[in-house]
């Protein structure tokens, strides 16, 4: 169900997306994005690059952030912009949480724009931010 646009205020928290990650979701993403990169498919390849093992695609965490926005807005909402940076790896077996909080609500040209602070974090160590992000959306 789409968000009640009239109930959205600064501080509104979106329903988070929580995923335990590993080859089961990374391989599916590799199959649609043609992203068969050894560091995402092979623990040895990840260790050879200085990581704990294989780790997930930044592009898939980018999708998770969009999923959170879409789930919150409903089909008729519009994503205007998204920014992110990649700070830490999504290690195999990690449970990630994509989440968002409203930081501003404003009206422009008859539309309701909402700014949000987003992040993908380690669900079990939420101070570990893998992907800080921001977004602006228009609610229907």
């Amino acid at each position, binding site marked *: 169900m789409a968000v009640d646009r009239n109930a959205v205020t600064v501080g509104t928290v979106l329903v988070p997306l929580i995923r335990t990650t590993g080859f*089961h*979701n990374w391989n*599916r*993403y590799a*199959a*649609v*994005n*043609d*992203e068969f990169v050894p560091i995402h498919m092979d623990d040895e390849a990840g260790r050879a690059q200085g990581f704990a093992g294989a780790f997930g695609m*930044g*592009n*898939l965490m*980018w*999708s*998770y952030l*969009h*999923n959170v926005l*879409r*789930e919150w807005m409903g*089909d*008729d909402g*519009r*994503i*205007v*912009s*998204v*920014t*992110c*940076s*990649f700070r830490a790896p999504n290690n195999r077996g990690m449970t990630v949480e994509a989440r968002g909080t409203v930081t501003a609500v404003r009206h422009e040209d008859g539309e309701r724009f909402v700014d949000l602070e987003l992040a993908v974090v380690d669900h079990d160590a939420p101070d570990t931010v893998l992907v800080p992000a921001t977004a602006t959306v228009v609610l*229907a």
Partner: protein
Amino acid sequence: MTPDRTYITPQMRDVVGLELRRSTSFPITDSDIRRWALAVYYPEPAPRLFWDADYAAATSHGGIVAPEEFNPFAWMTVPDPDTPPRERVAIGFVSPEETLGLERPDTQSLINGGTEVDYGVRMRPGDVITSVGRLAGYSEREGRLGLMLFTTTEDTWTNQRGETVKTSRSTLIRY
């Protein structure tokens, strides 16, 4: 403040703004969109907007649309007749400078510094998307890893009607 040493040569400054790459997708299909949605929502079910034509027709979109971050260039793009086949296969990282015929800066490591995207119209089944990438600029600063070179590239995607699908800016950090 400009550091005493620099990776940015006069030749690099001269190529800022030049086109780095141009790609055209094959027409997007319903299946491309459905499979993408299934993969990025797994193990949750994908929203019906991305696979149920009757449902999607009743929304404000009037039909199936792709998730905003959908990539229509995966697997293969329409071959460029001006590019010899053996040059279509890139091996490893090819720097923007090498793409433009310059020597790459003498850096040892690179990381993805982040992405900014402004979205336009949605992608739909049947759309053909063209991507044009340009070198947008350079900057640099001293960090804990030493002198870091920030390279920004900008990609603009348009559909077959000339409508902007998205504009993205990506920053590559080299040091």
